[in-house]
């Protein structure tokens, strides 16, 4: 164990910090769930790409730096420290990209990865369906083979970024006779094809970060299949594992939020109120614990130990921590916590956003089942 940075790591951190200080927009961009904000975030992603910072852990040939996970964590720390914009192409760069590298063909890598790294193509996610939320195996949208094409029909929901994105990825039922997890195929699909209708879903805060996507005889080449036909579940689960494991919420996000909370506490709270200072200390410890746990996981990955159900532990931990951080902030804010707009709007908006954490990417209830079944080896009971 050596928790000091190597000189190489320190140099990497310094380089990232310098670049970010020089390039991060001085005032926050509008939400990427608006048309204007989406476009500005794409511009920012392009700038990141030009600096080779958009996908630091990717191989150099696809636009990355071949940084290991430790460096990825360092980059994330610097990124949040700099207050840089949200990552509009997160679905692509952190979720789909690694999956393509794992199971994609050489052609697919060539075609999709560089345009993803540069955010020329921004990706939306299309997994859930109205009757397949927590139970993804209940997928009904189907892809029917017609020569060299798939004909897609059905409906997806909770498709993040899909309102303004260029392409989406999702799983479709290709073998209607196979049950549940079998007979699904992972397919990539442009969002501007005939037969596609995207209906934005307004969230709690009124923004449209999600959409429904309706597929009505949408034709895409079979070459857009990722991984094996009828093995889409395994491909999706590989992605979901990575999503829930490390990259979905990097520790830096919460460390940064807790730092802002401590600043809020110092500015507005009664320092002698131990109930409140204990609460702030608790979330500081949680964010720090999450950071340390992630470094431990990532070292394990580098040493060849696969991440397993840790993904589920992480998901529960960060999502509940995120809610708690914002609850405390709102308590400190008092009457200001009732305003959607104003000087503290980021906290109120962050609170609303945090509430989606325990629900999406597999509800925390599902994650607890997974931990019980896989880690604790309790008997299945659904």
């Amino acid at each position, binding site marked *: 164990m050596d928790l000091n940075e190597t000189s190489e790591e320190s140099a990497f951190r310094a380089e990232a910090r310098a670049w970010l200080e020089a390039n991060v927009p001085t005032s926050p961009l509008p939400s990427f769930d608006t048309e204007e904000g989406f476009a500005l975030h794409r511009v920012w992603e392009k700038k990141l790409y030009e600096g080779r910072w958009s996908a630091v852990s990717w191989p150099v040939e696809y636009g990355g730096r071949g940084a290991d996970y430790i460096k990825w964590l360092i980059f994330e720390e610097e990124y949040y420290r700099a207050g840089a914009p949200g990552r509009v192409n997160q679905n692509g760069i952190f979720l789909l990209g690694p999956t393509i590298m794992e199971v994609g063909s050489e052609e697919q890598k060539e075609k999709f990865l560089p345009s993803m790294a540069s955010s020329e193509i921004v990706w939306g996610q299309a997994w859930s369906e109205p009757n397949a939320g927590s139970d993804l195996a209940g997928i009904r949208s189907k892809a029917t083979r017609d020569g060299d094409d798939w004909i897609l029909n059905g409906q997806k929901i*909770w498709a993040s970024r899909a309102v303004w994105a260029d392409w989406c990825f999702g799983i479709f039922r290709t073998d209607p006779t196979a049950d549940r997890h079998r007979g699904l195929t992972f397919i990539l699909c442009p969002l501007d094809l005939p037969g596609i209708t995207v209906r934005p*879903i*307004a969230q709690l805060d009124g923004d449209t970060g999600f959409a429904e996507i309706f597929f009505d005889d949408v034709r895409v080449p079979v070459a857009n299949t990722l991984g094996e036909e009828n093995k889409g579940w395994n491909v999706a689960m590989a992605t979901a594992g990575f999503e829930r494991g490390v990259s979905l919420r990097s520790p830096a996000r919460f460390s940064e939020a807790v730092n802002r909370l401590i600043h809020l506490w110092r500015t507005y709270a009664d320092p002698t109120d131990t109930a409140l200072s204990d609460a702030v200390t608790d979330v500081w410890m949680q964010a720090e614990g999450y950071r340390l746990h992630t470094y431990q996981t990532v070292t394990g990955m580098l040493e060849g130990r696969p991440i397993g159900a840790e993904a589920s532990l992480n998901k529960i931990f960060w999502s509940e921590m995120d809610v708690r951080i914002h609850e405390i902030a709102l*308590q400190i804010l008092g009457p200001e916590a*009732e305003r959607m707009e*104003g000087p503290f709007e980021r906290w109120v908006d962050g609170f609303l956003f945090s509430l*989606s954490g325990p629900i999406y990417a597999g509800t925390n209830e599902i994650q607890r*089942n997974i931990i019980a079944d896989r880690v604790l080896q309790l008997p299945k009971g659904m």
Partner: protein
Amino acid sequence: MKFSFTEDQRLFASGLRDLLANECTPAHVREAWENHTGHLPELWSRLAEMGVLSMLVPESTGGMGGTLLDAVLLFQELGRACVPGPVLEHMAVAAPALANTSWGPSLVDGSQIATLWVDNSPYVAHAQVADLVLRNDAVITGFSSTDVHGIDGGRQLFTIAGGTESTASAQVFGLAASDVMALASAAYLIGASERMIEVAAEYARQREQFGKPIGSFQAVKHLMSDALLKVEFAKAPTYRAAWSASTGASTAVRDISMAKALASEAAYRASRSTMQVHGGIGYTWEADLQLWMKKSWALMRAYGDATFHRRRVGASVLSK
């Protein structure tokens, strides 16, 4: 010793529930949100006619002459229906406090609308639709208001400026306006919590995952049972607070604080649990659940949050 409501009290509340079931559906509440007034004039008239707005105004000045104990089940029904606008402020404080002034008659019949500015908040809820704002020591009229975008569309939030002030008192039954509002909000939050739980239970009966209604899963059952538990154990303290306030008990302020602390926490828990039961749908603008959730998040902080009220209870029971 007898801890129950009279037949009359229950009948009035159930009459109000019937009225609201028709006149204050979620669609009505959304209408109030979407027209950016946070107010339903039609419903306001019905509430005036029924005597809800004047429940606490003495009979001698044209009101129903009720006590806070008579009103507490009504506050709860208003919460069940998520009634938008300054109804609590108007009925619980402004109308009785100003009954003997020249504003009295128009507040009793609802032709003028009052709201309050008695909290420590820099903001005044419902100011835009209000003809007058009652502060602890004055009535303000003719002010201008600026929308500061409150989270609850049924409790729009403003700063106000200008206007004319006339001396007045916001005391009701010997209690400070903010205490009366804490009691009214506590009961309203209980009604809202009950309704969130009902809505989520209904959803859990219908929604299927893994081939079964999600309400058949223990995780969902227990989430909802725990939410119900907190609401059920906030009720008796709230009714007791209404009784204490009505009888001038020396513990009235402590009892109100206990009610507001418990109801605020119950409502927050109910909002979290019922949203979790709803899954993604609960996170959307379309789901009616948001109407009650946002109301809860606003009222749980208004007129003193759980911490403020818990500390007041603590100051009373721990000292000596």
